[in-house]
């Protein structure tokens, strides 16, 4: 037995640091069962803190963002009021329930110069702090208490410029408590300076966890990305740590001998790598990220439970890229809205903008490689043939998410 335990420890040095996670296979049913999906709405997405906006998207008083949340059958307005405070409200007029602002898109930005939001049905008007301000022909309503008819508030909090909401009546934890060790681990990087956001989205015909899990490990990189990033062949996925339901890890890319950058990558990527603004800024990384100050650091790669991934590269991984994010928004058991956003510091010159377009195109292409497996995986899993999936050591972040998924679900 001792020999077997040693062998497991040797094969899975990261996983065995978290004995509560075990080393065995995971059940597949949570990825395909429609009844469990219905429970996820209540027990996960209405209980967790969900990342919904960057503070720079709401830079000025009166700026707002609409975010459709199919998983909670709602739509949310996140708005900066005239005093600069950010609020979140259900996008519903308290009169007869029309959407206060139409939301054809999954997310969109807007601005109200008057710091009010007016329902286009009967012109009820609300202040951006949620108070009901005006009712057309108020004298024709009986016993109306305007103070009780403000917008339906949602808990909202900000950490490092990332704005989260929590749909619970009373969240079990504050945002910082919820983020656990992640709050400190990622604190201090100037995320707010990366104001160029290039976002892609698609609706994948798969369960949200199939997409999340595919993006939660780097074991796939040498195979899936050999087309776009042959330079990643020797990638190391290491320093994997769990903080409650969240987890994080470091990605390093030792150079591949004999592999030179292609001419356009050398030219355009080189421009970003030598510009003071866009060059690698390892010195800006929080102290526990890239702790050995390795020059081949690619990015710190975490999973924020339940549906948010942040890759912090500080310009040292993909040329000029400060960080990028993914989100996985469930629509149905077999349908997921995926969103990926590349964040750059703004270009000072036209050539920097062209170079940013190149990094962005390469990364978009890598995402096209990533998303190519997910519908196949889901269709195959939905057959029910595979009841369990086995994980290697560097798939630990999936294991951690899956365990906490069970805890949240109470099953």
């Amino acid at each position, binding site marked *: 037995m001792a020999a077997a335990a040693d062998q497991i420890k040797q094969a899975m040095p990261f996983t065995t640091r978290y004995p509560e996670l075990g080393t065995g296979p995971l059940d597949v049913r949570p990825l395909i069962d429609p009844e469990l999906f219905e429970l996820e709405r209540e027990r996960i997405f209405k209980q967790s803190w969900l990342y919904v906006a960057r503070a720079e998207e709401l830079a000025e008083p009166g700026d707002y963002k609409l975010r459709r949340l199919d998983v909670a059958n709602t739509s949310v307005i996140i708005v900066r009021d005239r005093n600069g405070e950010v609020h979140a409200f259900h996008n519903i007029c308290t009169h007869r329930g029309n959407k206060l602002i139409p939301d054809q898109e999954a997310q969109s930005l807007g601005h109200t110069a008057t710091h009010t939001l007016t329902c286009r049905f009967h012109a009820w008007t609300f202040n951006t702090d949620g108070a009901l301000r005006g009712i057309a022909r108020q004298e024709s309503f009986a016993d109306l208490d305007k103070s009780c008819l403000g917008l339906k508030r949602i808990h909202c909090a900000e950490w490092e410029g990332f704005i989260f909401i929590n749909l619970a009546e009373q969240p079990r934890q504050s945002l910082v408590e919820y983020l656990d060790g992640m709050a400190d681990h990622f604190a201090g990087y100037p995320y707010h300076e990366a104001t160029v*956001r*290039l*976002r*892609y*989205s*698609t*609706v994948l015909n798969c369960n949200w966890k199939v997409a999340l899990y595919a993006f939660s490990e780097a074991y796939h990189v040498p195979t*899936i990305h050999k*087309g*776009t990033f*042959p330079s990643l062949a020797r990638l190391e996925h290491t320093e994997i740590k769990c903080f409650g339901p969240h987890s994080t890890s470091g990605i390093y890319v030792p150079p591949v001998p004999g592999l030179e950058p*292609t*001419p*356009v*990558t050398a*030219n*355009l990527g080189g*421009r970003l790598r030598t510009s003071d603004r866009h060059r690698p800024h390892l010195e800006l990384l929080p102290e526990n990220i890239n702790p050995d100050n390795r020059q081949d650091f690619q990015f710190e790669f975490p999973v924020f439970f339940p549906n948010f991934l942040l890759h912090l590269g500080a310009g040292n991984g993909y040329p000029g890229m400060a960080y990028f994010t993914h989100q996985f928004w469930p629509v149905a058991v077999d349908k997921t809205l995926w969103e990926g956003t590349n964040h750059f510091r703004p*270009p*000072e*010159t*036209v*050539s*920097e*903008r*062209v*170079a940013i*377009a*190149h990094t962005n*195109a*390469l990364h*978009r*292409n890598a*995402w*096209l*490689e*990533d*998303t*190519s497996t997910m519908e196949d995986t889901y269709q195959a899993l939905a057959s029910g043939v595979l009841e369990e999936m086995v994980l290697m050591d560097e798939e630990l972040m999936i294991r951690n998410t899956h365990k906490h998924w069970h805890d949240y679900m109470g099953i």
Partner: protein
Amino acid sequence: MALLPEQFSQLESLAETWALPTELQRSERRWAAGPDDFRRFYDAMLPVLDQVLDYLDRYEPDNVPEPALPLYRLALAFAEAAPHNELYDCSNTVPNSFDAHRFVAAHGEIRDR
């Protein structure tokens, strides 16, 4: 009337089809391109890439004047097309990839990004 400054006249015929204002339009051009389109674009553009970018750098990125926009758009299109030459053997798709038409660039309608 020429689209490009005189010193880049050899790129004129490329500008006629590639110098498009939005990422979405440039993507549609890429998806419709054949291997020879990619080769012609790359072979003409790579030798003068530095000169093109030097020329454009006399302007602010948010304030490129109308006469210089076709050259700017051509440079953006090249940045997006070059990976097809350098990595994908001049195919108009990324090998073993998801359907690019289903991938929506939220910024794709924004001009000159």
